[in-house]
């Protein structure tokens, strides 16, 4: 069956193309970009094929090299992976379209290694997503991490320091994960996720398993920048080159969240979390703090990218609040899964717009944005659509997330979090309204009046504009889609795969 091989193809395609980019780039630099785009396009098409195959034939199990698990490595693609794969490869494709101009401007003499590393980053992301083996996940986590360290370090200003901080914290995260896997290995003797799921239940009361859970959780939270462990994140997002900001704020961040959810629910299962470590309430409260903290810090920033970075911390809080509530509501993980996609769309669009502003005008301080709404109407329009969606204007994706989260909260009976959501929405309105106000309304006053008539349309190039606009429209298109019944088979299948969504 050819579909089975798709699971390994989707990892191998960007990998082989990254070698090709280096090899052919030696002779002709012009080939790098087309090769990258071919790889991203092919991965996206394969991911659609995988989703189709999973929906018709069920979970894909692929034994790499023909070695049966748990002795060999197994790739497993179920609904959750397939959903993530389509999303991640789609965003990577759009970022690839976006990359062309900004890389030409920012890093003209580093095109070859840049695209090679970009593809390696995508390889790492996909490798993490399809694997069914804990140690293999670590290896791909490191491919992802190493490529993002290097890509962040070549940014402007404080980028090397930001990258170094990320190296230190990222390595601690990866090593804690590895340590947790080691603890599991000592008490079970296996590394395969499905095998561990079978072996662990009699050992749930074992201190080693509980310690392993805590270390894996902390390690992956570090990678996902979940609240108290986010210290590396604002600097890294702010100083990275444009394309890299876009890809790490969307694809890389969500991959870490994916790994976290996968390990929590596929390896340890809901029973373990609710009965033996009871961490879900703690996750809820930390998420609530993250939502408020991220929003308050976002208000204090004048650098647009840094503001978005803090907003990302708040949004990881939203996702984790959905995870924390999953056992006490019949919606299960639905709000969290929705927000993984929703935040990716909104943050991708906003970072694209923010970097287009920098690309075209060199402005990064919000206070200098007067008249930008007229100067770059379409980019500003995309930014505003995404920020309206994030604030929660129906039927935007942010509204859907908040709606489902509130339903889940009411279901769980923890009414305090409704207040938290409303408060954080209020804070979001504050910081996005400030940007919108300066971009559109402030034109007539102050500096704007001098230039007044001098403002002419000076829009970013099509390559940078179109991906942002696509994402901006998807912010509302997907919002409407979530409200219909079309995605529910996927969401239900994911929930039932984790044993969620049914109130005992």
């Amino acid at each position, binding site marked *: 069956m050819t579909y089975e091989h798709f699971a390994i193809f989707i990892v191998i395609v960007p990998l082989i193309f990254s070698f090709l980019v280096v090899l052919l780039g030696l002779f002709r630099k012009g080939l790098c970009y087309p090769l990258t785009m071919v790889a991203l396009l092919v991965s996206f098409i394969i991911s659609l094929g995988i989703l189709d195959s999973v929906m018709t034939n069920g979970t894909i199990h692929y034994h790499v090299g023909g070695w049966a698990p748990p002795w060999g490595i197994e790739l497993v693609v179920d609904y959750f992976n397939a959903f993530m794969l389509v999303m991640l490869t789609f965003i990577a494709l759009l970022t690839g379209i976006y990359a062309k101009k900004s890389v030409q401007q920012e890093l003209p003499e580093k095109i070859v290694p840049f695209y090679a590393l970009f593809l390696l980053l995508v390889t790492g992301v996909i490798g993490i997503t399809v694997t069914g083996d804990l140690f293999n996940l670590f290896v791909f986590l490191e491919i992802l991490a*190493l490529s993002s*360290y290097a890509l962040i370090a070549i940014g402007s200003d*404080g980028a090397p320091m930001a990258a170094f901080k990320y*190296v230190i914290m990222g390595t601690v995260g990866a090593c804690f994960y590895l340590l947790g896997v080691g603890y599991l290995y000592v008490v079970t003797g296996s*590394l395969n996720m499905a095998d561990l799921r079978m072996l662990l239940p009699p050992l749930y009361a074992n201190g080693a398993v509980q310690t392993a859970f805590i270390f894996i959780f902390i390690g992956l939270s570090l990678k996902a920048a979940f609240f108290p462990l986010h210290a590396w994140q604002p600097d890294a997002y702010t100083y990275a080159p444009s394309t890299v900001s876009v890809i790490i704020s969307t694809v890389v961040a969500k991959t870490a969240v994916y790994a976290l959810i996968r390990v929590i629910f596929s390896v340890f299962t809901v029973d373990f979390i609710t009965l033996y470590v009871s961490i879900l309430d703690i996750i809820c409260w930390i998420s609530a703090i993250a939502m408020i903290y991220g929003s308050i810090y976002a208000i204090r920033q004048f650098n647009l990218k840094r503001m978005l970075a803090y907003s990302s911390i708040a949004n990881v809080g939203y996702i984790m609040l959905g995870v924390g509530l999953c056992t006490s509501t019949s919606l299960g993980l639905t709000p969290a899964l929705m927000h993984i996609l929703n935040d990716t769309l909104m943050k991708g669009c906003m970072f694209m717009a923010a970097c287009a502003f920098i690309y075209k005008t060199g402005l990064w301080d919000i206070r200098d944005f007067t008249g930008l709404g007229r100067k770059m109407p379409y980019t500003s329009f995309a930014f505003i659509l995404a920020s309206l969606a994030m604030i929660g204007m129906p039927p935007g994706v942010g509204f859907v997330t908040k709606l489902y989260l509130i339903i889940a909260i009411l279901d769980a009976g923890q009414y305090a979090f409704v207040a938290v959501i409303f408060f954080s929405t209020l804070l979001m309105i504050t910081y996005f309204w400030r940007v919108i106000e300066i971009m559109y309304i402030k034109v007539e006053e102050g500096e704007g009046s001098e230039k007044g008539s001098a403002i002419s349309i000076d829009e970013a190039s099509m390559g940078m504009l179109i991906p942002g606009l696509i994402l901006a429209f998807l912010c509302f298109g997907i919002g409407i889609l979530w409200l219909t019944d079309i995605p529910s088979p996927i969401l239900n299948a994911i929930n039932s795969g984790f044993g969620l969504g049914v109130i005992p």
Partner: protein
Amino acid sequence: MFEYIVSKFNYWAYICLMMIGLYAMIVKGNLVKKLIGMNIFQVSIILFYVSVGAKSGGATVPILTAEDIHHAHAHVLANPLQYMNPLPHVLMLTAIVVGIATTGVALAIIIMIYNRYKTLEEDEILVIRKESGV
């Protein structure tokens, strides 16, 4: 109690080593020292894994003896008690390489930092960055 401590001494050793590494990573102000701390931290995990592979009672390195190869040709299975557990060794070969690669990238970043600020002390870099108005 004493017996309990002795029976798991390898784990206590790796925990101590790991704490030393973590301490250096957090407290030291010099970036190279932080990196050395990171290496100690990684090595402690490698030691932990490799020690898991050990078997007492005459087990040797996981390379089949000529005798067992001969047996394997005759479809007689080797006795697992004779050889150490090969899997942790395999995993750590990979982890060592990952650690080296991380160190390499971190050193490259350190070179970039040095070229930009002409120092590797964290507090001095902070002062320089404040003075330049960021």
